[in-house]
């Protein structure tokens, strides 16, 4: 169902990057959750995260699907000013969803007896010790969970960071870059890992959830001016998105959501590819029960303060930004009160803000030679 867009006081502009994890926005639109809240939402597809940040900062977009670390990074930008400070979040869009894919060329050389993390990690380390080549590693943005998960992965595999070059490659170009031998290993959201397997360019060797079972990923960023002047619309929008997240966790809804997402105006890809990428939530080809994406359960929509703290520590550890310069409180950026009101309004349980599920992984420090 398409809601015709008319500019009125209930109209909202929401941006997204065409990835599987923008699904809650598309479902909220197509299944009518936005309309049920009386909202007229215009979804705007963007090609990159930088563009989302700029438009969110200036209020050209009211809200957007955005990398969780970007909310914090924008506050800490060098020579920052009011423009960069004008967005926050009151809602996470789920846990995980990323995977690490190794190029088939290297994977085949490893000749591993099984596909478990310790086996592959040890084989990769040995492989590197036999060559002088740099391992080119792809991520999607410097300030992304993808970058931090890669650090966790390389650390756990015992790989010397001096042998690694991390590069940002747009997700749409990842598979091709791997095919061309321009990147050896990458961390990206779906469907770009499944797509590499189908194209036989790469093999998924680790799910993000194996590194951190409840890792933050995307959040819904909102322009501060929008949140201040239209609090009621903000909460209605969040309520609709939470409903969409809940809807998405039902296995019976995979095919329908894949069909919606595959539409030319959204992800513009094959619905088969999306179904395969989503089925990983219920069936996995890897030992153990590793979920690819969690949209709703275990308070997956909570803006956990502990997650924000962890991200700040990671930024500091990898010398990205001096996080000691953060001048606003985390409460203002990770708005728990609004989240709590939305959950209460939907009759959904809210736990204490300290009670995030699982454990926070220790921040991986770069491994030296040896």
């Amino acid at each position: 169902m398409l809601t015709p867009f008319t500019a009125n006081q209930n109209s909202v502009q929401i941006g997204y990057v065409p990835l599987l994890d923008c699904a809650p926005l598309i479902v909220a639109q197509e299944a009518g959750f936005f309309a049920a809240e009386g909202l007229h939402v215009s979804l705007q597809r963007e090609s990159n995260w930088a563009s989302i940040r700029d438009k969110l900062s200036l209020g050209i977009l009211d809200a957007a699907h955005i990398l969780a670390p970007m909310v914090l990074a924008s506050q800490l930008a060098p020579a920052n000013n009011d423009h960069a400070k004008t967005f926050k979040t009151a809602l996470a869009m789920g846990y995980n969803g990323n995977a690490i894919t190794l190029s088939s060329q290297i994977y085949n050389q490893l000749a591993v007896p099984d596909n478990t993390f310790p086996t592959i990690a040890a084989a990769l380390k040995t492989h590197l010790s036999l060559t002088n080549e740099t391992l080119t590693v792809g991520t999607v943005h410097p300030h992304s969970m993808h970058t931090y998960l890669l650090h966790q992965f390389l650390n756990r595999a015992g790989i010397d960071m001096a042998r690694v070059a991390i590069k940002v490659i747009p997700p749409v170009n990842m598979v091709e870059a791997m095919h061309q031998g321009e990147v050896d290993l990458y961390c990206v959201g779906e469907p770009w890992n499944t797509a590499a397997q189908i194209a036989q360019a790469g093999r998924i060797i680790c799910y993000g959830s194996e590194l951190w079972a409840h890792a933050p990923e995307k959040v819904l960023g909102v322009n501060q001016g929008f949140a201040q002047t239209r609090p009621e619309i903000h909460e209605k929008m969040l309520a609709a998105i939470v409903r969409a997240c809940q809807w998405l966790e039902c296995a019976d809804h995979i095919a329908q959501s894949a069909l919606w997402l595959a539409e030319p105006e959204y992800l513009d890809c094959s619905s088969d590819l999306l179904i395969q990428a989503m089925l990983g939530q219920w069936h996995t080809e890897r030992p153990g029960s590793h979920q690819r994406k969690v949209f709703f359960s275990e308070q997956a929509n909570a803006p956990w303060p502990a997650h924000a703290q962890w991200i700040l520590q990671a930024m500091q550890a990898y010398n990205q930004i001096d996080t000691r310069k953060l001048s606003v409180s985390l409460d203002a950026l990770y708005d728990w009160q609004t989240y709590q009101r939305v959950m209460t309004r939907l009759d959904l349980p809210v736990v204490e803000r300290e009670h995030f599920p699982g454990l926070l992984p220790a921040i991986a420090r770069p491994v030296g030679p040896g």
Partner: protein
Amino acid sequence: MNILLIDQIANRAKPLEAALTALGHQVVVRPSGKYTIYHMVETFQPDVVIVDADSPDRDTLEDVSATSDRYPRPIIFFATDEDDQVIRQSIQAGVSAYIVDGLQPSRVKTLLNVAISRFEEHQRLKGELLKTQNELSDRKIMDKAKGLLMKHKQCDEEAAFSAMRKMAMNKNVKLAEIAQDVIDLFS
């Protein structure tokens, strides 16, 4: 200033390159297809990068700017209230810019305005092209519908045309839509 221009649309990049060069700047246009942004920024050392806001390569540029203090950073981080208008305009036109630390955004305004006008001009031409294409295809549909009506209703061209025009007026829709209905009905 050294300006790096990143735009996949060659017939937009070329005139912009010429205009910026005419202002006395050193301009390098990034060739398409290769992941060479890291290398280009390192060797050319641009003061300003002007990039198509819709280019997926922008996030690579974000990484480059995070690598070293010497490299250009998103202009949005430096802009003050007085720059608001030109930045907003540029983003709406699809132009984004990165500038080196220490360079005042006001000094980049001229460049941005040149880029904005080129992007808007391209947008206008694209719109016109689309309109012409639509008109052409409308005409083809009309001709086909007229032919079908003449055959099935055994009337002349003028009668076929006035029948369709009457239907369009009665239903208050475009003539091309009626023509499409006629085609759907008879073929």
